[in-house]
């Protein structure tokens, strides 16, 4: 079995502190399917985000990223839009768990505030490293534990459970 991908590269979309679940998945759109809901992701702080994001891009947040409700659509919308990884100074625990469970990794980096919007980043989950290729700097955050890397590699908790129950991840 080849080693799972744990290094991601993409453009940084930088947000401030306490990006909450109502900003990520607004209540007014919560009953809509994810392809509709995702169009409203972060619209209140950055209307162009959902339109302009490119698959593989990295969302960089401040303190308490994903604070608020337990709604999984907050992480699901980011993943649907193609976000490869969230890098934040700290993340709300339910959001953190939801994100991994849906196959969206989160890397905790206390120096996330030093990354400029639009920077090209390389994020190494297993080593907890973030290389800012535009700013020419390297930051060390918290390495992601192996069992969470495995969930990400399987594509989320459900395929991971499928593997545990049936011997292989769901197709």
């Amino acid at each position, binding site marked *: 079995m080849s080693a799972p991908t744990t290094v991601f590269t993409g453009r940084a979309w930088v947000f401030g502190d306490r990006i909450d679940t109502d900003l990520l998945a607004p*209540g007014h759109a919560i009953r809509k399917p994810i392809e509709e809901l995702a169009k409203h992701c972060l619209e209140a702080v950055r209307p162009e985000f959902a339109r302009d994001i490119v698959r593989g891009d990295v969302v960089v947040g401040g303190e308490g990223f994903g604070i608020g409700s*337990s709604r999984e659509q907050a992480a699901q919308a980011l993943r649907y839009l193609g976000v490869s990884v969230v890098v934040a100074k700290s*993340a709300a625990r339910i959001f953190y768990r939801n994100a991994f469970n849906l196959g969206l990794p989160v890397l905790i980096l206390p120096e996330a505030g030093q990354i400029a919007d639009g920077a090209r980043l390389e994020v190494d989950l297993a080593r907890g490293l973030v290389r800012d290729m535009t700013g020419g700097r390297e930051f060390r955050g918290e390495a992601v534990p192996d069992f969470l890397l495995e969930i990400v590699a399987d594509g989320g908790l459900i395929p991971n*459970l*499928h593997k545990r129950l049936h011997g292989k991840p769901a197709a």
Partner: protein
Amino acid sequence: MTVPAAMTLSEKIIARAAGRERVRPGEIVTCKVDLAMMHDSGGPRRVQPHLERLGARIWDPSKVVIATDHFVPPPDIDSAEILALTRRFARDHAIGAFYDMQGICHVVLQEHAHVRPGMFAVGGDSHSPSGGAVGAFMVGVGATEMTGVLVTGEIWVRVPESWLIEWRGELAAGVAAKDIMLFLCAELGMSNDYKVMQYAGGAVSALSMNERLVLCNMSAELGAKTGIIAPDARTLEALRHGGHAVGNDALSWQSDPDAHYERHLEFDAGALAPQVAAPHSPANSAAVSEHTGVRIDQAYIGACTGAKLSDLHMAAQVLRGRKVARGVRLLIAPASTLTTREAAADGTLEVLTSAGAIMLPSGCGACAGYGAGILASGDVCIASTARNFKGRMGSPGASVYLASPYTVAASAIRGTIGDPRDFLPTRAAA
């Protein structure tokens, strides 16, 4: 022979659920789940497709509680279909503890004594820390994580650091658990990740179970993993009232006297004034005097945080013999049908409706931005709910202030944010 090291209440519960002699903060352990609670929004409609895909059944339906509270009563066909799906799921999976439109899950769970001292519980809602009010360790999880629990009966946790938050003395008249939590949101901020807040002290012991729920409930706003209060005689009384024959041995769920807390904070309850959180964060809290005079359009008493029987009693104390100001709408959505029944029986509903309150059905309602009472742009609302994030309660152009039911009621009378102590006899005079 080594003496076992001291543990906090939360560490003891996690160790027991993990089948371990002891656990230390920072360790990742796998726990067996004693209780899993879901509601209509994040529950069956989201876990059912996962269960089907996995070809799996629920590990133990007797440990599952389901309550419909988000899309109730259904205002549109989408909501009605979600509720129909929820009912089918409860039937197909033989869920005995299914509460259909009986009130908000966190309140219903405690009314029926499903959550008990020493339990390790999970809930599919971010305000699941509410369960800590009875001395359980209860955390919120998302729907995918809930699927994992339903299939395996287990969940991984990183053992949190415990903080001891002690409130000494006695709360003044017109000051409530909600004021304690708004104050703490400003004092401690909202990013206290991987901490469990254990509340203690004379002012906490003196609180009713409804009020204790508020402390644990709003631990979510502190960003904590959960909140917890060690059980005492009042806890057991509430469990017995809810129909559970709990033994006095449940009182053994306490922190060891020499347990280690990462922080020990002490506050003087008597010095606390009513608090108000300005838009758009519970952390924007300050004494009510900082905000008095702000014009309001709507006053909202609702949610698990702010519409239990104790909350309606607070509102009634202020509203008795008074009227809601012209041009202001006071909406009240009791937290459960039992709350409504008890408030009707003790005369509280009459006081509220005589003052001009508009009564709404029990459910999460406008607090979650789903139900009746949401706001237009430019609207200013003061609410007894837990969150005032931009856009949560309706239009992103609305402004929501948070306060206790006392302060919401006082503001409804004035038409501007007001101090409830102006309408209440002081404790000394009483």
